[in-house]
């Protein structure tokens, strides 16, 4: 691995660490320590497999996949979410896992005393719209990053976000 690979990894870390942390934080019972442990785990795994990372592809999407795998492992260890375990055992339906991860996040959001009104409004959205809004407004991903993760055009993501916000206002 040359110096350019190292600087690429460093850049990826600085731009992604906050987003990954937030994504994880809402899914581990707003537990800061657990979120920090998981974030560390995500980046350590990313480092381990960095030689197989295709730099032409989206960093956000790659890290998000690792983060989801780490969360799945975390839940397996915790054994507190029966439905999630069932979903994981059921099949490899990633959308199902995502839905359950959001459900956990919502539950934890309420527990932490954050304003639940926005979460309830988000829950009324379709899965795709909700993800775009939360990723952009809550975790801090740009429209471009979300577009890369979802393999859509940036304009399509912006349009979807705009429509989702209109629905929330209604």
């Amino acid at each position, binding site marked *: *691995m040359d110096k350019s*690979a*190292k600087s690429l*990894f*460093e850049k990826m*870390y*600085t731009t992604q*660490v*906050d987003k990954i*942390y*937030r994504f994880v*934080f*809402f899914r581990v019972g*707003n537990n*800061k320590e657990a*979120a*920090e442990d998981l*974030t*560390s785990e995500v*980046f*350590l795994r990313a*480092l*381990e497999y960095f*030689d197989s990372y295709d730099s032409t592809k989206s960093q956000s999407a790659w890290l998000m996949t690792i983060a989801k795998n780490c969360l799945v492992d975390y839940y397996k260890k915790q054994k507190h979410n029966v439905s999630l375990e069932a979903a994981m055992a059921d099949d490899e339906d990633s959308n199902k896992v995502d839905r359950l991860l959001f459900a956990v996040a919502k539950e934890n959001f309420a527990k932490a005393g*954050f*304003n639940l*009104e*926005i979460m309830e*409004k988000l829950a009324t959205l379709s899965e795709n719209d909700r993800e775009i*809004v939360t990723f952009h*407004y*809550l*975790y*801090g991903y740009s429209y471009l990053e979300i577009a890369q993760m979802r393999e859509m055009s940036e304009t399509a993501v912006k349009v979807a976000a705009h429509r989702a*916000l209109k629905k*929330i*206002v209604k």
Partner: protein
Amino acid sequence: MNLKQRYNLWKVKRSTSPRGVFKRGLQKKLETVWNDRYVTKSYWFQARIFKFTAVSMIAVLLAGSFGTGAYAYYSPEVTEGSVLYPVKSSIEKLEEKTKRNPEAQAKFYLKQIQRREAEKKKLKEKNKIVENLDIQIEKIGDKLEQVNTKLQNQELKDKQLKPQIEQRLQERKKILEEKQTRFESKKQEMEQRTQERAQRELQNRERNRVN
């Protein structure tokens, strides 16, 4: 989404940011792991400047030692007692071991005798003792004689070698004869002196008895 809701989300986002200490700590940890995993350790002796220096030094040393060895081997100035003489004799011993057939050995002994003679000449110019060299030349001559007996019934590749050996052995014979003559004359001289001394002693005794 109204402004209030946006503000609420922004507040949540801000309050759920990771701690700076954690981020810096993780960054350091990742750097350590990266170095362990991907960076091959470079030792001081792998540095380019060291390699260049080492190669240059070795080249200079080799050239120096070859040069010194060659000078010691070929120069008649390097005589017994000089610093390079052990180098010269070591190279000669080594060369002697490489000569396997009698013809090559004979050539080598001829060359060795020539070298010793050149050294002898140089030492004489400096008014130094040459006895050791005479002994060495004699010993080499012995070896040459032994090799010559093996060559008697052989057809040699170098046709001029036999006459050279013959000439050298003749010279050796001459020297030995001269030595022998010198020895005989010295012996006679000694015997004569002894006789004279004995006669003188006898005469002294008789004189003492008469008195």
